[in-house]
């Protein structure tokens, strides 16, 4: 109660600026979603290769492995995990439609529940809802190093044709990346951690850098995601403009 801004009713101290930023984001999002019907997406090398490798694996009915990283739902890494789950939603539908073997590895029980829910929903929504899903979710371990070791073993054991790693990763990524590189598995990896990105670059065929993982839905035939992608672009331009104005202002003043 003592933290309220003087003159305001309930707003906590120091939260006025974040609230304003959120309001700007909401307005931009609503306008962008309303305006976006069809939009030409700029090609991202990681997305182009991912689509190509996915279609190749689907055509050949080869095993696809999706590792959702050591993140969970309900913590700091929720959004990265959600990005991985968006890809899982697409892969699960393809897996049911074309009978492609799909292996999903998770590190947290909350992610396990979400992944199993997505797989079950994709089976229910398909015409062959009585058929057994050819996809399976493996809970490895909540500890990042134990998770990476488990996934490395899974890659060596199941020998997938395509290995997609989207989610929360740290330096332990090397254990997974090297296991895939040793077996010559096509790999596409993406995360938001700069430390892990530096390690992903040499081992993966293509890397999705930072916010590119949040654009996955838009590139995987999910029109509902286009609005948020446009919002991201608009907000990025506004942020860059504000930084430039700040730099100019400080430079001229000094």
């Amino acid at each position: 109660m003592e933290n309220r801004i003087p003159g305001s009713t309930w707003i906590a101290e120091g939260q006025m600026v974040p609230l304003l930023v959120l309001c700007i984001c909401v307005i931009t999002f609503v306008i962008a979603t309303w305006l976006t019907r069809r939009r030409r997406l700029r090609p991202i090398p990681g997305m182009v290769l991912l689509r190509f490798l996915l279609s190749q694996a689907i055509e050949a009915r080869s095993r696809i492995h999706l590792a959702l990283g050591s993140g969970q739902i309900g913590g700091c890494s929720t959004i990265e995990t959600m990005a991985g789950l968006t890809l899982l939603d697409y892969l699960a539908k393809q897996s049911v439609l074309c009978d492609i073997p799909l292996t999903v590895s998770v590190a947290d029980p909350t992610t396990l529940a979400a992944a199993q829910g997505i797989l079950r929903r994709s089976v229910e929504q398909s015409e062959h809802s009585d058929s057994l899903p050819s996809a399976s979710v493996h809970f490895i371990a909540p500890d990042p190093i134990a998770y990476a070791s488990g996934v490395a073993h899974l890659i060596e054991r199941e020998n997938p044709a395509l290995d997609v790693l989207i989610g929360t990763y740290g330096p332990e990524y090397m254990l997974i990346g090297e296991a895939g590189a040793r077996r010559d598995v096509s790999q596409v990896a993406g995360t938001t951690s700069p430390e892990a990105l530096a390690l992903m670059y040499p081992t993966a065929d293509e890397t999705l850098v930072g916010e590119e993982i949040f654009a996955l839905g838009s590139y995987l035939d999910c029109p509902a995601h286009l609005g948020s992608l446009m919002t991201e672009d608009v907000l990025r331009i506004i942020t860059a403009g504000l930084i430039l104005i700040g730099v100019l202002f400080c430079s001229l003043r000094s």
Partner: protein
Amino acid sequence: MRKALAAIVATVAGLAILIDFFVEHPIVDAVGGILIDGALIIAGCALLLGLLNLLAVHGRRIQERQGDRMLSLALVVSLLVTLLLGRASGPGSTSFRWMFQYVYYPIQATIGSLLAFFVVTAAYRAFRLHTLEAVVLTGVSVIVLLAQIPGSEKLWTYLPPLREWIFSVPVTSGMRGIIMGTALGTITTGLRLLFWVDQPYA
């Protein structure tokens, strides 16, 4: 109906937590606290689901006598021993801590130490690539490595300042760009969920 109900629950819970972040009020704080406690309880229940998944996956491997069934057997036995020990003597007991201190942490440290060798092989692979990025990566790595050596200024006077510049300008700006992009992506993904544009839970 089920889909709409899930969407309503998710949106109301999301908005309540968001309001709790901005507003200082006893009722709002209490609602936020209850929802966070609820999330923790659900996460606890999910752990049980994880345990069942582990037992199901590895139990099947043992039952079907697959090639690596001994590894699965070791995992199941370790899991049950840890579970029973924790249940019998408590998580703060000496025997339980002994297991972590003398079994789990050494194994973790051993695997962690392997990362250095993996980084070297990955770096070798990266430097072999015949692309502009690989050339830049190699060049920058060589400069930074040489500048780390004590007395590197004797090799070339500008080596330490060049290293400082690499860290403070290109590396920092690149990292900030990634962090800002991630923050924007986080906001838009959150809004997508709140506004029912995307319903992964339904």
